[in-house]
């Protein structure tokens, strides 16, 4: 069970109190009635599925009830940071020369590559 920091309560609380609410920083177009099918598909249907940092919305549904944003690492499942809704998207790309969070030789177990990649 994860601990999640609610930026409104200022507390680390159990994952049980929260609900995930999809990707963050996707604004509803102000002129939504007028946008094209492609623009609507981009806005509503299409999402990235990154390996690494993902920007998400969470709600402290069994706490203060507020929606906030979080940066989570999809490899380690760790929350890198949380911040209030409406605050700008933080730039967390690693500075040049800084080692990534996991060592170069680390690999997820039990994926196809992990189990099959090196088999003859």
């Amino acid at each position: 069970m994860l601990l999640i920091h609610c930026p409104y309560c200022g507390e680390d609380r159990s994952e049980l109190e929260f609900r995930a609410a999809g990707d963050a920083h996707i604004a509803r177009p102000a002129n939504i009635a007028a946008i094209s099918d492609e623009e609507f598909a981009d806005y509503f249907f299409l999402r990235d599925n990154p390996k690494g940092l993902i920007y998400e919305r969470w709600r402290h549904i069994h706490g203060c009830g507020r929606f906030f944003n979080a940066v989570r690492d999809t490899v380690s499942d760790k929350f890198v940071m949380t911040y209030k809704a409406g605050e700008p998207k933080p730039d967390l790309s690693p500075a040049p020369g800084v080692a990534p969070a996991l060592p170069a030789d680390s690999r997820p177990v039990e994926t196809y590559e992990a189990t099959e990649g090196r088999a003859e």
Partner: protein
Amino acid sequence: MTGANRIAGAGRLTPAKTARFSFDGRSYTALAGDTVASALLANGVHLMGRSFKYHRPRGVVSAGPEEPNALINVSRDTARSQPNVRATVQEVFDGMKVGSQNRYPSLSFDLGGVNDALSPFFAAGFYYKTFMWPKQAWASIYEPRIREAAGLGVSPTEEDPDHYACRYAHCDVLVIGGGAAGLAAARAAALSGASVILADEQPELGGALHFDTGAEIDGQNGYAWAQKTARELVGMENVTLLSRTTAFGYYAQNFVAMAERVTDHISRPEANAPRERLWQVRAKRVIIATGSIERHMVFADNDRPGILLASAARTYLNHFGVAVGRKVGVYTAHDSAYEAAFDLKRAGVSIVAIIDSRMRPGEGLLEQARSLGIEVFTDHAVIATSGRLRVASMTVVPNGGSAKRKFTIDALITSSGWTPSVHMFSQSRGKVAYDAATGRFLPGHYVQDCVSVGTCNGTDDLQAILEEATAAGVKMAAESGHDGAAAATPAGRNLFAWTGGMAGAAYGAGPDDSVKAFVDFQNDVCAKDIRLAVREGMHSIEHIKRFTTNGMATDQGKLSNLHGLAIAAEALGRGIPEVGLTTFRAPYTPVTFGTLIGHARGDIFDPTRKTPMHAVEEANGAAFEDVGQWKRAWYYPRAGEDMHAAVNRECRTVRTSAGYFNASTLGKIEVVGPDAAAFLNLIYTNSWDTLKPGRCRYGIMLREDGFVYDDGVVGRIAEDRFHVTTTTGGAPRVMHHMEDYLQTEFPHLDVWLTSTTEQWAVIAVQGPKAREIVAPLVEGVDLSNEAFPHMSVAEAKVCGVPARLFRVSFTGELGYEINVPADYGAAVWEAVAKAAEPFGACPYGTETMHVLRAEKGYIIVGQDTDGTLTPDDAGLAWAVGKKKPDFVGIRGLKRPDLIREGRKQLVGLLTKDPNIVLEEGAQIVADPNQPKPMTMLGHVTSAYWSENAGRSIALAVVAGGRAKLGQTLYVPMPDRTIAVEVSDMVFIDKEGGRIHG
């Protein structure tokens, strides 16, 4: 006397305290503190089980949780019976009944033993390859039979009468394992001022100090030091010391699950004591001090009863005072077995010979052996053993040679070295690294805030262990914010520095494929099975594991992993680190379902929501149905009525007189603020600006993709205040949906949302007599059609209670919905019942509600819609504001697929035979004779017998449905095809006059 093999003066148990127990019906005496295994060994019983697949006779291998063979059934009484308990862990209590498993008719004569003779046919993958045809027979014949024969224990059939507790805990430092390393680390962290939890799986702390009588700490015997340190920790306020507690799962952010066995060792536990307790600990820092597990030697017939680990023999002797045999052979590739031999010899046991596969044992061992008169054969191998129910001899050859020598023995202790227990570290998502120098996997890259100390970290020397552990305790305490007094490092000394170790099969155990040299005792996996898996094309260690089942189930690689890996690596011609380890999984040892479930069973498995009128309804004989977590009155049967008769009567009564209905579960949200109407304009398809205070409107809510999300009546109480109702099931998600938009997309709007579902009790009174029933109870509202027409709302007093009174209808009849504060719900319900009685009106339940609304074609979101219907599909296009500039779903509605011709639309269906009630979910086709696969036009969403219409009615979604009015379609069922006519959705009072009463 508590057994012929008990050595006077040896061990730490008190001969004064004894307990009686039985094993397979035979009675034995144990000493207090004995495990089942030690007590049976004391009585000369080695045969404790049968193996999983071949049903080979098996004895105890270990003295700890890694035990693969001695799995027993333990019972206290008829209801309290637990299979698959490790005899090496279960403490004996007075009166306990122990049974062996997986044998028929008896442990010493087991018919299943024929599997052993047939074993050439039972190679790895045998089941997968053999029982393939016919396909259906797998589930019905093969699998049940195989499971029966290759079973472990039998599950108890009665409900578990025990109860289980759970506890959450937070601490600065959690120490897993209470051996020398764990104790030193916990003490150092505690002295620094950190709050510490120390958990150890054994009854007493000490870990390997239980057997290692050569270890000395701070000038005293290691075990004595452990007990002294444990007492010191128990006396500290900032320390929680948990014995008999196994950390079995390590999850994200230092969240560790532990199982505490509270009463399993007690003869007569207190009635209110839980049997086990689940601890869920969140620790700022974790110190892993899980030690290491000795490996057996892999050689031919290494599984006979009486062949066990050297350290286990040492534990039985030094802790329990039990000799595992009188003529003991030793087969080893590691120095630790020598110390076991020395201890046994000093206790008067004959050591027949030490067979060492190595050329050169560690320093000083040969001299010590010589001085004790023990013969040592270096560079030799054991290539065979004999003895059906107990090992009787071992046959020894020089490595690479063939000159055989046979020794008569009654026990054989083995060691091929020690495997660091990296289970917890690996579960924490840390990456292990292979240490080529010592041939073992050790903690490498850490992912969480933890550290490994002691032998699980590859530290072997006792002084080094104590230094490492003390430093870790200080460091982890400091990192959690505690810099108190630093503890002095205890001084430790081993008798011998252990060297050696091997992984894989010993000389003589292959590569030919007839020798049974067991790698995994529990799953009957031999060295040859792993080689076979490689030959058959399994080149990944994960595949080899699954094909052979090596290290699976409860073993989780404790004994078998490294051996299996080494044999696979050899067969593959690759190095051990390239082949890699399989994943360690939680739980580390088996955990009972009771522990995981805790209190959450029976009535408190899931919360039950009851309306304020529940008790009254119950007293009136209502039948209830579950709607989500709610208990709702389903129908109110009278004497002699079945459900069908009761519902027919309730339906008739509502349309001829009146009925009253508990609608309290309806979702309710209070929307308040200067921008409340503007907000609802964005959330609903309808327009709310034109709705005047005192009036209601039916609203539809979409998702952004244009599909119907929820519906309900919204009443405007004041300019800035709306009373919103939602479906019963939709209440939480509608609230979530509204909050989402309010907080993130429309934060400029000044609106407050409050869930009031449980604040209001709601009584719907419906039917031609509704006004006459309600009027005498209402103060302050003129109920005439003119003053209070359909779709009105007013704040009033009902039965003297402040109320919101709605003139609404979900039946098509004249109707009112009385909202009163929940605490008054039961009283007002009873007042309504009393007022209704003279009119012959009755209460009705959800089933009647469903029929009545279907008679009028009123949809239920979630039943008649399924998340792919637009308002137009549902016949509700009129509720979408055409001139609105924006609302949630406005763009989605314009998607090409949502505006195309031929979409599925809600229509009515009338069966040609009015007595046939369709099945909900049944598919609809145009041509019943079309060859399969037939073209499905849609499906039935609601279907009922309508007593008022005198026939069956149904709602359905049908492609292009509204253009098919009057056409005949077909509903193919398994036994017949039902002809139906497409109709509109209103089956009663098509003009709709009744609602205006």
